């Protein structure tokens, strides 16, 4: 059954008969294509051409199409090439491929310099759209919160608690571990460099201020953007792809109220808690290294820490946390709802969610720094 396909040429004067044998199937497609491409060159000045397929042992779409293609390219003007010896079994298959029209060309995007410049322009112009989208979502979330305040019964407590577990409780180990390590590193580097001036003890001031004001909350916010922001985008995006969000809407539920508000609220509660735990872990790690590596015993460390920092430093840090949480949440939800039908789009928006989330967290941190400096905190 599976004989190599061949295409014999039998010239009869000015007429030509092409005799196909063997198995004209997908498995031999590369060979078949070569045979047919060569035979196509025989066109020109013949009185008649017939393609005899009676010796073909097996035929499928590939073989049938290639025979049809050969017939078409050998046909010229009045002289039509014929297919002869077709068995009834394969007749319908050949009929089927006879209907095939030329394939439309694929739309391949061409890369030009002006096209690239246009792309940059579009991206820049899109920034304002992004900001408007974020403000839009902020407004929608606030309106939904307002409705919840008026009708507290429609608040989704179970969902909120579920998300709180996901973004807060389950994040504790990794957040504590990483901030602990960062605390250790800051302390070690500080001691290493301050020792040259005999100013080892000032490492406590640096650690305290840095961790409580900046590093604690910033590091935790970046980790949460990567961990939970991406999860939110992926969840909402796949729900959007499967029309679950449309389903909710048609049942008379507001997706903002059902899906987004619980997620936002969970983040806003979780981030200050995580930032506090992170700051404590970093101080602990820093203290440990100061003791083991720098020889500053815990009592001296604590005494110095009490002098160096005030409650203001802690307030400055922790006040930023819920705002950053809201920014991460809004970016993640906007990106999630912007997902289109394909897996590729889901990937793009999840990436955008994390990148934009971290960017806005850092921008917010800068804005806060200016604000606190001007009110003297």
């Amino acid at each position, binding site marked *: 059954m599976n004989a190599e396909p061949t295409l014999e040429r039998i010239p009869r004067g000015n007429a030509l008969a092409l005799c196909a044998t063997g198995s004209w199937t997908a498995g031999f497609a590369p060979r078949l*294509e070569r045979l047919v491409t060569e035979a196509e060159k025989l066109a020109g000045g013949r009185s008649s051409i017939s393609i005899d397929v009676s010796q073909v042992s097996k035929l499928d779409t590939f073989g049938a199409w290639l025979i049809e293609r050969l017939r078409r390219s050998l046909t010229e003007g009045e002289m039509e090439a014929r297919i002869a010896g*077709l*068995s009834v079994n394969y007749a319908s298959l050949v009929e089927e491929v006879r209907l095939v029209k030329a394939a*439309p060309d694929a739309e391949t995007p061409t890369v030009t310099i002006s096209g690239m410049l246009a792309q940059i322009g579009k991206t820049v112009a899109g920034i304002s759209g992004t900001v408007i989208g974020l403000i839009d979502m902020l407004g929608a979330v606030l309106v939904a919160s307002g409705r919840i305040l008026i009708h507290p019964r429609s608040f989704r407590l179970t969902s909120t608690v579920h998300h709180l577990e996901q973004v807060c409780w389950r994040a504790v180990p990794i957040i504590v571990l990483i901030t602990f390590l960062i605390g250790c590193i800051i302390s070690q580097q500080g001691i290493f460099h301050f020792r040259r001036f005999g100013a080892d003890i000032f490492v406590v001031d640096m650690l305290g201020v840095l961790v409580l004001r900046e590093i604690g909350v910033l590091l935790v916010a970046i980790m949460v953007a990567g961990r939970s922001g991406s999860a939110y985008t992926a969840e909402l995006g796949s729900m959007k792809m499967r029309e679950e969000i449309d389903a909710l809407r048609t049942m008379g539920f507001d997706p903002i109220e059902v899906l987004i508000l619980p997620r936002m609220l969970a983040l806003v509660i979780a981030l200050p808690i995580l930032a506090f735990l992170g700051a404590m872990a970093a101080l602990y790690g820093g203290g440990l290294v100061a003791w083991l590596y720098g020889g500053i015993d815990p009592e001296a460390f604590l005494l110095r820490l009490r002098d160096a920092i005030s409650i203001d430093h802690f307030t400055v840090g922790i006040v930023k946390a819920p705002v950053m949480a809201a920014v991460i949440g809004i970016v993640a939800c906007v990106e999630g709802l912007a997902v289109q*039908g394909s*897996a590729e789009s889901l990937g793009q928006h999840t990436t955008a969610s994390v990148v934009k989330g971290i960017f806005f967290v850092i921008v917010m941190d800068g804005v806060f720094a200016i604000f606190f400096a001007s009110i003297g905190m």
Partner: protein
Amino acid sequence: MTQPAPTPILAPVEAIIRVRDITVQFGKTRVLDGLNLDVRRGEILGFVGPSGAGKSVLTRTIIGLVPKVSGSIEVFGVDLDAASTSARRAVERRWGILFQQGALFSSLTVRQNIQFPVREYLKVSQRLLDEIMVAKLGMVGLRPEVADRFPSELSGGMIKRVALARALALDPELVFLDEPTSGLDPIGAGDFDELVRTLQRTLGLTVFMVTHDLDSLYTACDRIAVLGNGKIIAAGSMADMQASQHPWLRQYFHGKRARAVMG
């Protein structure tokens, strides 16, 4: 065109799938329990049973997506458990699968979806790839203009058709269809049955069709197998099914809907 007398393309009775004593278990629930089934070459086998009876599980077990506890599966005479990786690959090249939801690659266009298996297995020119793609689209009743659309831009019926075109891309000998007509309107479903019949005739396909659609069973299937309690409770022609005294079969083939279909 001369028309020689019709001859059967294939030897009439030969089991193309041979399932013996299959047991599949999820946790403590036994879904398939010592199931035996033969699918003969060149037939369209309709596979029915109550929802949740394990029809899709059996399909997925044969394809190798669900692990089985015991039993053996032979496809094209190759024991899939004993086969080497390359022998398995060879078998996989000879079958095509239409998943319930289509399972088209969402980030590829219709053109790329259909060409994907061909491109991977055969070294042929882009021109032939495009031509074969158009031929396959034509076979499933779609116009070449849809070639550059993405799956998210297609209707449910079109997704099924494109998925069938992809399943047929390499001209397989065996096709698994998991509820091909679910979610199609009756006319669309009727067309689809007709399409499966036509393809089976033109390409000499063997079709394994999981379905709930009584119309499909009447119009498209040569033989029907019924799954219940993890076993095949009946297998045979439509007439056999109607003559059966099994309570579920009586209900299924003599219910209101069945009568409506029979007329």
